[in-house]
């Protein structure tokens, strides 16, 4: 209609290098109630265009007929449920491309229910103690829709709303454990702390979630598939809030050195 040329079609059809014919995968298998010990099974799956890691798992079940257990509920980075460890790295499997050779294991730091399915309940239970709903202060009740609010005021809170609770940041965090709920919990606290409509003492919740035990290594930001600046915006912003509210002990934890894997909590 306006003289479009098909130039874009060439780009669409292959700016990436030619993919391999098959993806070779080694998958962690373990059903604790019937298996004596975990094992790894290997499969070869024909490569399809743009293949994601999740697509490989789907093909193992649907086409090869092996009943690997894993969660997925959306396929497009909304549900956060398909997080696993791929070649040693916490990965959202609907998001990351399949590699020619892969080892797929359950997300680290969580109890395995079966195969690639982990128990998220402990994490979800902790979040429930953080009062993650809006608390409008008594002197600023809701004025009715649409309330006065600008994009600028909501910019940081909106960034936090990108969190899908996939828990990759938790699996990447070297100091998460008994005393620290992990970066995902802090993102949720920050989501309300950064909302100008909220009147709750969110700094206290950040401390309760263990912000003082965060070592500021930034592995959470690197891991986040939603591109949330976890360290730079969520945690830094909460620390500023803690300081301005007169709290102490909000970190960063001084003793941690990046790469010190021994400190990693189970």
């Amino acid at each position: 209609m306006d003289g479009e040329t098909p130039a874009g079609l060439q780009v669409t059809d292959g700016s990436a290098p030619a993919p391999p014919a098959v993806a070779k995968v080694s998958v962690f298998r373990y059903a604790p109630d019937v298996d004596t010990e975990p094992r790894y099974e290997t499969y070869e799956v024909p490569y399809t265009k743009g293949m994601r890691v999740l697509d490989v798992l789907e093909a193992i079940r649907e086409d090869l007929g092996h009943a690997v257990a894993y969660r997925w509920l959306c396929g497009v980075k909304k549900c956060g449920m398909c997080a696993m460890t791929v070649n040693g790295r916490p990965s959202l499997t609907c998001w990351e491309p399949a590699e020619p050779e892969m080892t797929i294991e359950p997300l680290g730091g969580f109890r395995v229910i079966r195969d690639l399915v982990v128990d998220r309940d402990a994490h979800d239970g902790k979040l429930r103690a953080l009062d993650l709903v809006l608390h409008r202060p008594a002197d600023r009740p809701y004025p009715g829709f649409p309330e006065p609010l600008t994009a600028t005021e909501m910019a940081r809170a909106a960034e936090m709303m990108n969190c899908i609770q996939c828990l990759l940041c938790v699996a990447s965090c070297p100091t998460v454990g008994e005393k620290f709920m992990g970066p995902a919990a802090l993102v949720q606290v920050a989501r309300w702390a950064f909302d100008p409509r909220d009147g709750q003492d969110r700094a206290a919740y950040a401390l309760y979630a263990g912000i003082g035990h965060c070592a500021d290594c930034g592995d959470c930001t690197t891991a986040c598939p939603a591109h949330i600046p976890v360290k730079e915006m969520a945690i830094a912003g909460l620390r500023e809030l803690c300081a301005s509210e007169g709290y102490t002990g909000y970190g960063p934890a001084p003793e941690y050195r990046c790469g010190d894997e021994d400190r990693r909590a189970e």
Partner: protein
Amino acid sequence: MGHPVRQIDADLLIIGGGGAGAKAAIEAHERGVKVVMLVKGFLGRSGCSIFAGNLNWFGPPQDGTTAVQSDEERQRRTMEFLAKYTHYLGDQEYMRRAARFTFDHFYPWLEERGLYILRHDDGSIVIDLPHGTQAWATKMGMSGQVIMDMLRAEIFRRGITVLEETAATSLLTAGGEVVGATALDYRHGEQLVVRAKATILATGHSNYLSLRSTGTREGTGAGWVMALRAGCALQNLEMQWFHASDMAWPRSWMRLHLYPNPQPATAHRTRLYNRDGECFFDGNFLPHNPVPYIMQLKYLVKQVRRGKARFDGGYYTGYRHVEPDVLRKYVYQTQFLEKVGLDPTRDLIENAVTWHMNVGGIRVDGRTMASGIPRLYVAGSVSALVTGGLPNVMYDGHVAALHAADAVRGRALPALDEAVVARDLDRVQRLFRTEPRDGYLPAQVIKQIRTVMWEHMNYVKHEVTMREGLEKLHRIRVEVLPRMRLESLTRRFNYDWMEAVDAEDMLDACELVIRFSLYRRESRGAFFREDYPLTDNIRWLRHVVGRLDGGDLKIETEPVDLPYARPAEGVADFFEVDY
């Protein structure tokens, strides 16, 4: 066999953890009702509602902040939209109330709880230009996700009992009433019997029935077939929406919709291009149509017939004419395109069609969400009231909860019919088997079913191919289902067991869709039959309704009420009308 069965009692059982179920749970709990929710996936993290990308707005053009001043006009525009959205088969009295709810309740109720409707820096609400038909929560494509996240947090904060990774497997009947449900908790390998004073069925769309579907593995049609078996009527199941502009690849991303809807903060809409790079559709070809899905497909058919596109690929969405700033700031999809090496300001993105929302579903009373079976209410997209949309399904949940809360007050728990309970539990138990060893995994059977639907119930339908599809489904039923087996008898997250139940339900659901489709001898909206290519408002502006009669499906038509909007045409060329 030693199968563990757990029994639970509830005032109100809510089946489904999307927008309808979540709203119902909050409203019922608010009224002191003891609620138990069964969620096949995770509350607010699975099913259709998280996919809701856009929110109906219909504010005055170009000025969102003054929208509340023109209620009547907004309702009129919403009504007009919903009538076309349902090809004039939607319940118009219901739509009028749902439209009012959208503006009087949905937005303020959610905003009071902290929802962020996307604003400009000056505080005005971001709308599409110039018509103001849509608004968005944080971004185009993200609205449902952030809304459901809020509802999830509120429901847990209220301490409502939520059983996740637990799916209803039947509605329990006793003395002509629905008295609860059986369920399968696949995470723990345990069957449940839930007894309830009232039940709200809110299982969402049946949008996993074809090989290319926008739905995920929960959307198996179980809601339809459980309701049918419990005595409900189903309506307009043939009215199957397809999407024309979903990603052709990667496979998981077939659910990533490249919205043809009006885009945020721009007058541009997406365009479709054929194999040769010729633009054959632009949302602005029909500037007053806020949801051009139906028209995209009508235009696509012509390209396919000329060999310039295929339903499974070889045509493209283009954003090249859209301001880069709009794509960067407001469109969720942009990051996906970049992830696979595409630049939406320059490149075209290959599309293919997908099986999407259902216009039809369970026939209900649009004033109360009552199903016609005592104690059973139906809410959200599993019903036949409207095609979908988060404000609409939350309206359903709201209304169903109010009526169910009234109904359970002062009532005793109903008695179960033990023979029915045993029958329904046994149906699921007998699928917990590893024999025959050379049989099929449920996931393989489901793929076979979905492949039949892709090949025989795609966008273009014909009696001959539909009957072939029915015959193939019959062969799967008699030859493949008896050979369906699990890999192991682990009780820990044995999703295969869930899928074995799903495979049986999907076969029923798919046969229903084909039989309804054979019955309607016209083409309308989402539904195109090559052998009956006219939109026939004289004979077929009617509901196709099916119910069980002595164990057999009986299909007939029922009249459609058209109190507010009716099509101008009598009989028309399918390709020439815009609904």
